[in-house]
């Protein structure tokens, strides 16, 4: 008899754990706008997820302190994996997400973008830069928007910068072949280099299984006489490349894009190796405008480190969402679909000033328009390269 009672209790527990709690219907009046977010908090890209989380939480505290519309953010771990992001999306739906900050990485976002479109939930990604987040071959996702540059723009911007500032004449590229982000930028860079007459002397690829030893690619670049090495990759392999290049006495100008951001805060990395590395980013922590100074000092106070571009993008996303939510007179009890319509109307017409750019606007397809900046690492900090 006891056993039967026990079994019944266990079964009851399992059922309550599995079923949704939306059938109660006795929930209190909502007092916040629920914002969902998924990003890597564990695994190889965890620095990005953590930076986005920090930046978003900082902005959230500031926005809520204003006393106007109250926001709430729920961040789920997706390990930068598209199938995990799918599950994280469902978890956020269960939570009652009304607006979303989408995903931190491109690979994860590509998987869930069609779902945001189907369910008609507004999503603004801080750092998912692939175009596949905002449109596919056959359709434009209406509800998804980006805060960062799209990959093609980064590739084109980098090629233009290297050409205009005469950083070098012979360019080598090392990219990660199984990464949406890396190949996307590399292809556009090569295409743009061809148009503006920048000579590419070497292209080396690696993938996840060979992301620790780069001597072959570096030898190839060195033998080809490259004086600029373009690295459209994440900071983790980039740190190994910098180390191995220094070991073999090869010192070209290293040029990275936003994935290089985070290299200075990587644990166990000798930051002196990153001296003189250029990277294209919309955010420079040494800028002197009021917004940036305020953001950097507050961030340092809260987390004890200089914010990178991911934190800055996330900070801007929260403010941009807040601006649009307020301007659109969104109330707490609206459902996600109603809010999405209001947000789309706001984002395609509004102008936003933030730490990653001023007079930022969005196109109807969700891509952002703002000016890229190049920074160079000097004495362990980013300095505006202009």
């Amino acid at each position: 008899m006891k056993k039967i009672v026990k079994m019944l209790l266990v079964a009851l527990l399992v059922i309550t754990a599995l079923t949704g709690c939306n059938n109660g219907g006795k929930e209190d009046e909502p007092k916040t706008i629920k914002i969902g977010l998924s990003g890597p908090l564990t695994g190889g890209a965890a620095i990005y997820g953590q930076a986005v989380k920090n930046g978003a939480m900082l902005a959230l505290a500031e926005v809520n302190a204003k006393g106007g519309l109250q926001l709430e953010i729920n961040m789920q771990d997706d390990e930068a994996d598209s199938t995990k992001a799918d599950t994280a999306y469902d978890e956020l739906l269960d939570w009652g997400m009304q607006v979303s900050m989408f995903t931190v990485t491109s690979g994860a976002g590509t998987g869930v973008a069609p779902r945001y479109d189907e369910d008609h939930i507004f999503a603004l990604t801080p750092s998912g830069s692939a175009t596949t987040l905002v449109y596919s071959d056959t359709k434009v996702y209406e509800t998804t928007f980006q805060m960062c540059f799209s990959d093609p723009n980064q590739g084109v911007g980098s090629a233009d910068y290297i050409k205009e500032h005469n950083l070098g004449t012979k360019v080598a590229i090392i990219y990660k072949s199984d990464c949406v982000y890396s190949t996307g930028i590399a292809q556009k860079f090569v295409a743009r280099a061809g148009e503006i007459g920048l000579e590419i002397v070497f292209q080396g690829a690696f993938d996840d299984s060979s992301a620790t030893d780069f001597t072959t690619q570096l030898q190839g670049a060195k033998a080809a006489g490259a004086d600029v090495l373009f690295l459209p990759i994440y900071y983790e392999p980039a740190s190994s490349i910098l180390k191995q290049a220094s070991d073999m006495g090869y010192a070209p100008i290293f040029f990275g894009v936003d994935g290089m951001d985070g290299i200075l805060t990587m644990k166990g990395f000798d930051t002196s190796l990153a001296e003189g590395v250029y990277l294209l980013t919309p955010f420079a922590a040494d800028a002197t405008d009021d917004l940036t100074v305020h953001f950097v000092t507050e961030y340092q106070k809260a987390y004890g480190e200089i914010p990178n571009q991911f934190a800055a993008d996330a900070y801007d996303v929260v403010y941009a969402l807040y601006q649009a939510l307020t301007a659109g007179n969104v109330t707490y009890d609206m459902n996600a679909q109603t809010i999405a319509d209001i947000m789309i109307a706001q984002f395609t017409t509004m102008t936003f000033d933030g730490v990653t750019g001023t007079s930022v606007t969005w196109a109807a397809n969700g891509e952002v328009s703002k000016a890229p900046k190049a920074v160079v690492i000097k004495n362990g900090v980013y300095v505006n390269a202009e």
Partner: protein
Amino acid sequence: MEKMFKKIFDKKHISRTVSYLIVIVGYIIIQLMMNTVGIKNLFKSLLVPTCCYIVAALSLNLVVGVSGELSLGHSGFMSVGAFAGILVSGLLEPYLAMGWLRLLIAMLVGGVIAGIVGLLISIPVLKLQGDYLAIVTLAFCQIIKSLLNNIYLGVDNNGLHFSFVQNKVVLSNGGRMLLSGPMGATATTRLATFTAGFLLILFALLIIYNLTYSRFGRTIMAARDNRIAAESVGIHIRNTKMLAFVISAILAGMSGALFGLNYSTLQPAKFDFNLSILILVYVVLGGLGNMTGTIFATIILYVLPELLRGLQDYRMLIYSMILILIMLVTNNQSLKEKVEALILKIKTRFLKKGSVAND
């Protein structure tokens, strides 16, 4: 009729009956819950991948448990099946509106192609044994991943366009990319359903149990337990093992196709070495040759990390600790004996009651 019942419930086949019962009862309960009280979206999204991993683990158990060869390339077969399935479904889309039929065709094609690849691989692989075999299958998994990472395939009004290593595919208006190298398949129409997953598990169980309980099953276990003795009585070792290997590849391919059609985007990098190991963990934890155990182990280990989401940053730490604990506990001999004693106790009590009732 009586004979049939006897066959279902006799001692030899009881584990088979239990497997079927668990899967069917589980399916009915979940379906009932979905239609009455409703399940969280989170669990809904876990249903299909769990089914896929169960089938993959079952099929790997055929190779590792029944046939006794350590294969580390199982995710390779899933990958072949997944991308074959996605391609077929994508190509048929304009001509065939019925989703379930497309899913069925995709799964069949995925299975067949994975089976053909499995057959080709098994020729060199099965000349080896033990560690060497494991390493070659591992290499195979890497080869599949690298190949798929470099294939660009698009379709438009003029037909298929293909390029390798670098994307040179130019499509006319209205064309779409089916495979774009490392980005994999994007914008796939999601066709997979829980019912399809359930039927696939039943199908896999049917095939595996019928194989292992047949003459073929006995020969393959003989080949596993004592190669020389088996050869001396005239068993063709390589052919037997090859059959097990190919069937396992077919089932893995089918589960891969279902998995691929459950997501709108799938990258070849998903099916890496880690996934092979993960499936192997399910098999080892569930018990070599034990299909019921494999089903349970897969469900527990796949759903656990998602259940632990509430723990935030400590999620993966706790998960790995639980994994170590489970491995230690299930391998503990004295604990096993205690559990067996407990089962015996329950059995004898029930039997006693039964005999009383008969009187």
